[in-house]
């Protein structure tokens, strides 16, 4: 079984206005007009990698992530995850939302417990939840409701809810965009540690180039619509990374170039 995710000749087009409005990456176009987010996109991702997808607003990064997670059916082409075609959302490929993905009427514990609701042994279930609260450093906060937590804590709780399912792939859609700068940096560090610990595939969408350089094993840069692959690079540098290091600085320059910023540095 090949340990990779293959995107083959992927095409996605939206016709209906309603569908486009759901995706805030896309500005509203006139109704009824077919509009291609992707056309003939080919891509290969190795499992176990932390992959970062970069691109300007409206390049369809989030759409690509949703297609991979099975929420949107591709118009043409297909996606194979370890040789299995993606057709619908599954509990082993978990999508983590930008923010507000926790159910507000359930406590943190109950939210995290959703993924293991079939386990009948209450004590085993409680232990599992407790372990995952600890993993994201939220021990003692289990009884609180999401609105009683800070943004960073909510994001961590959502990660815990995803991790309890032991997913093969985690899809993160701009997970840290709602957080303040310091919390972002801290969450990056935690995500990296988590990845080193669980060794599962993490696919993360962001528009923050430094975030990508610091985290990724593999960076994918998408151009604007219809989105095409602009840049595709595997990074071997060990962590923690110094972004001013010659090689990384060069890659950063190239990414800026491919995103259309030529004189920023």
């Amino acid at each position: 079984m090949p340990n990779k995710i293959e995107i083959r000749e992927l095409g996605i087009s939206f016709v209906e206005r309603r569908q486009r409005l759901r995706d805030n990456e896309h500005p509203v176009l006139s109704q009824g007009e077919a509009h291609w987010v992707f056309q003939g996109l080919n891509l290969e991702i190795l499992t176990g990698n932390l992959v970062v997808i970069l691109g300007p607003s409206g390049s369809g990064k989030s759409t690509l992530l949703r297609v991979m997670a099975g929420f949107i059916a591709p118009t043409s082409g297909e996606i194979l995850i370890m040789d299995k075609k993606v057709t619908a959302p599954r509990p082993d490929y978990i999508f983590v939302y930008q923010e507000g993905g926790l159910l507000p009427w359930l406590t943190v514990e109950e939210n995290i417990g959703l993924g293991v609701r079939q386990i009948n042994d209450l004590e085993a279930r409680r232990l599992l939840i407790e372990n995952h609260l600890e993993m994201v450093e939220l021990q003692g906060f289990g009884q609180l409701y999401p609105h009683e937590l800070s943004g960073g804590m909510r994001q961590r709780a959502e990660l815990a809810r995803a991790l309890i399912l032991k997913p093969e792939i985690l899809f993160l859609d701009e997970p840290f965009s709602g957080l303040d700068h310091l919390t972002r940096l801290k969450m990056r560090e935690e995500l990296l540690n988590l990845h080193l610990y669980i060794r599962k595939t993490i696919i993360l969408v962001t528009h923050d180039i430094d975030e990508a350089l610091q985290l990724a094993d593999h960076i994918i840069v998408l151009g604007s619509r219809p989105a095409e692959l602009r840049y595709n690079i595997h990074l071997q540098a060990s962590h923690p990374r110094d972004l001013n290091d010659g090689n990384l600085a060069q890659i950063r320059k190239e990414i800026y170039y491919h995103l259309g910023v030529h004189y920023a540095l």
Partner: protein
Amino acid sequence: MTKKKQIILVRIMILAGILLIWQGAASKTGTMPSPVLVINGLAGMILDGSLLKHTVASLFRVTCGFYLAFSTAIPLGILLGRWPAGEKTINGLVQFLRPISPLAWIPLAITWFGIGEPPAIFLIFIASFFPLLLPVIKAVQQIRPIYFQIAANLNFNLKDKLRYIIIPAILPEIVTAIRVALGVSWLVVVAAEMIAVKTGLGYLIIEARNTLRLDLVIAAMIVIGLIGLALDHLVLRIERIRLLEWKISAK
């Protein structure tokens, strides 16, 4: 004096004013029973047990009709809220039936269900069905789509979706809808009891009128008002339970 005490004082003064005007009007016209007479009548009905009997009869009908409406309108509302095509199809019919006063159904109710409890219960059902159905449809439609994506991701079946997403999400709206529907039911039951039955507060009023006992008419009206008030308070209490805490404190 605290603010709360002031409010209570003003309320007492308003009540005293009403009683005074009432007493004045009663002694001047002679057709209107005086407050004392009404209180006497009320006491009489309490003592001989007839008030309790009629009140229980009315509450029984409201309970039956309301439960019938609740147990059909809530599932139907959830179904239509999650099924846009169905909602669109049925919306015209609902909007057409909704403005027809439940009282307009009285002749049909008697034709279909005869005399006795069934037509009265049917009228309560009609009265509380739409105030329950429409808010539920709307509330279900307004649940964030993201929650259903999570449900798909976590492999929720229908029962899980209802238990973890739909019901908690619409609970605040359901409580408000119950308040409105119960209010309307209580309005309608009195009218429904003026026909077709021999018990209930509505029957009490008609019977008192037929025997020219206006004091009992007013006494029954007072009881109806008080019970309506109590029902409303009861539902308001539900709003404060822990299940809804997240919504209240999140706002």
